[in-house]
């Protein structure tokens, strides 16, 4: 009896304390409680076509471009379930007043959020109003409301769609920015010889960047997007070259003895790593300042190429070394110490470090040798656990992976259609799509933002 009483009293004290603590903390700031176990669903988003705001003849074609781009951007983002258009109610809103949230939130659309708006052309300018509404939360439905005004061209309609998509992803992507405004740089032969080209992340808007006239390879855009480093063939050797995106021309960059290949930026833009044979005549890893000065040798192996910084910390470098025969992936600290071999068989090249620093993508011929089945495929390795996942399967020779800034996509080169083209894929292996079709295109590099 005494025991029961003690327990009851203790309980009461505890309850009082809990209530008191609750009041105190509630007064201090907001508080959320979240329970977590496996299983999660992606936001279900409805994307009805934006309405034409007026009858201007330019409105309809621009609206078509806009709607298509917005849909593709949200679909490509890889974080949404897009509600199929056949489920949409007949009444589609162009303004918040026209939105019947219940019709969209209930089955069959069963959407969680809806984006809608209108587009109109006035005096050569395109006006876009867009909203993002939480249809299951009638108390505070609006998540986002935006207005854009640009020149009335299809390119600008696409840019507006990219910007609006990135705004949506910024809200619903829980801290990871969208990639709709990012660029991909690659090597293309369509001008006659290998030059650096650029395109939007979805393959649109392909443009030539360099006009070197010989061979330009391994483009690497700087973290701020202002400069493009690449390796170019000069009269007597390979050199690291620098192209200014702001000035639109190649700018001075110090040349070194021997051959210099495969530049790579640190994610803070202060350093460039590259492979050079200036010291011993054999390729080794060097790190220089962003202006090319103060080059320091990091590795002493033979045939060390393709360095890449860990973009999260810039404290590690992954690279390819042939010191044991066939090329393998290695990782070392940024000062050259603590060398670790990451792959132990086959033919592993082209490491690419994920933006969060956890994963390494690389091209791997797992069982290399004459008469052995299997081509070069893209693999992902979790660096901490050394777990390996195969990303591409049975599709010719795949090489040169590069991560998107959000860490959800990988762009790579593949000859699965017969000749080399650029493809992109979600990091879980889904949503594979071909980005280039003209000429031969290779060595893609995704911009930092």
């Amino acid at each position, binding site marked *: 009896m005494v025991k029961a009483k003690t327990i009851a009293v203790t309980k009461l004290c505890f309850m009082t304390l809990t209530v008191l603590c609750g009041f105190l903390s509630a007064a201090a*700031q907001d*508080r959320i*409680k979240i329970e977590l*176990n496996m*299983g999660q669903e992606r936001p279900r988003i409805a994307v009805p076509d934006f309405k034409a705001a007026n009858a201007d003849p330019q409105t309809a074609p621009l609206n078509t471009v806009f709607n298509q781009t917005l849909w593709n951007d949200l679909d490509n983002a890889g974080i949404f379930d897009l509600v199929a258009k056949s489920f949409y109610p007949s009444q589609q809103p162009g303004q918040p007043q026209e939105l019947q949230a219940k019709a969209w939130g209930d089955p069959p659309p069963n959407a969680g959020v809806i984006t809608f708006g209108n587009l109109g052309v006035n005096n050569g300018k395109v006006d876009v109003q867009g909203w993002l509404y939480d249809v299951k939360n009638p108390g505070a439905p609006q998540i986002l409301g935006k207005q854009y005004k640009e020149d009335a061209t299809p390119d600008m309609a696409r840019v507006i769609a990219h910007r609006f998509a990135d705004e949506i992803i910024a809200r619903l992507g*829980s801290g990871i920015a969208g990639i709709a405004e990012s660029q991909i740089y690659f090597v293309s032969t369509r001008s006659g010889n290998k030059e650096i080209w650029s395109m939007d992340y979805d393959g649109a808007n392909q443009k030539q960047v360099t006009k070197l006239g010989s061979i330009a390879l391994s483009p690497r855009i700087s973290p701020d997007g202002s400069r493009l480093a690449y390796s170019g063939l000069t009269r007597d050797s390979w050199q690291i070259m620098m192209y200014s995106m702001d000035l639109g021309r190649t700018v001075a960059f110090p040349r070194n003895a021997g051959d210099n290949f495969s530049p790579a930026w640190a994610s803070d833009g202060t350093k460039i790593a590259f492979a050079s044979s200036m010291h011993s005549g054999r390729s080794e890893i060097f790190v220089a300042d962003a202006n090319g000065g103060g080059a320091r040798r990091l590795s002493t192996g033979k045939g060390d190429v393709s360095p890449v910084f860990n973009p999260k910390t810039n404290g590690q470098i992954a690279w390819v070394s042939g010191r044991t025969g066939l090329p393998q992936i290695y990782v070392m600290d940024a000062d050259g110490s603590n060398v670790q071999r990451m792959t132990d068989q086959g033919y592993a090249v082209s490491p690419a470090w994920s933006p969060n620093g956890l994963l390494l993508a690389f091209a791997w011929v797992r069982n290399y040798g004459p008469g052995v089945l299997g081509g070069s495929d893209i693999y992902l390795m979790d660096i901490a656990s050394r777990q390996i996942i195969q990303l591409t399967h049975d599709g010719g020779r795949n090489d040169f992976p590069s991560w998107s800034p959000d860490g959800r996509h990988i762009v790579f080169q593949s000859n699965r259609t017969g000749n080399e083209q650029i493809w992109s894929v979600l990091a879980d292996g889904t949503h594979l799509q071909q980005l280039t079709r003209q000429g031969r295109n290779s060595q893609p590099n995704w911009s930092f933002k």
Partner: protein
Amino acid sequence: MGYVRANIFYEREQWKKPVLLSVGFHGVLVLAIIVWGFAMQSHSTANDWGIKQGDAVTAQLVSASIPIPKTEQSDNIVANENKGVTQTQPEAKPVEKPPDDAVPIQGKVKPQKIEKPVQQAHVTAPPRPVPTPETAVPYGEGGPVSGPYGSVTTANYKGGFSFQNADFGGKYGWYVDGVKRRVQQNWLTYEIDPRIKAPHRAFIEFDITRDGSPSNVRLAQSSGVPSLDQSAMRAIQRIDSFGKLPEGNSVTVDFWFDYPPK
């Protein structure tokens, strides 16, 4: 006379013996009771009266509140007791009008008095009707108030989140949902000791600052499995940002991690 006296004496002698006997017996009786009483005291207490041997009585303190069964909040509108946000008034019954051809019964129907117009010094405008907001929930049809987009329950995902103060989660369900997703993505369950079979739960508490970065990550209650605690802590620490807070300077999140998933 002498005979009488002798007779009296004889009778007195006859009284003496029974009196002594009676006194003796009473004394023995009292003694016996006292002895019996002492003898019984050793294995019985005064408190045990009225109790059959072999039974026990336990007295429980009544706790501070009487346990009332909790009302289950259901998403089903029909089954929901929630009254919603706005109220709808019951419609006024239309006044029954007599048919046009009805003949009035004399004496029963009073002639309508013609009211004299009263002149008013101040004419006050009738109150303007307040338009019902489009997003208002009709009376009796409201869902759970703190159950916005994101609190959907699936087979694998049980529970959700509760909020204190300011209704952050109610207003920004999409943000809370994003936080949940992001942590889920960064929780690497292979870090947990694979031998765990029984369910364990780790409680983590952290703040999200204005720019969306998590800070002050702390283990609120250990699960008893160090590897689970650590994997949960790392899941939060791996994240740079949850995205800018839609409102306020800071929000505290209570997270709990169940492993293996129920």
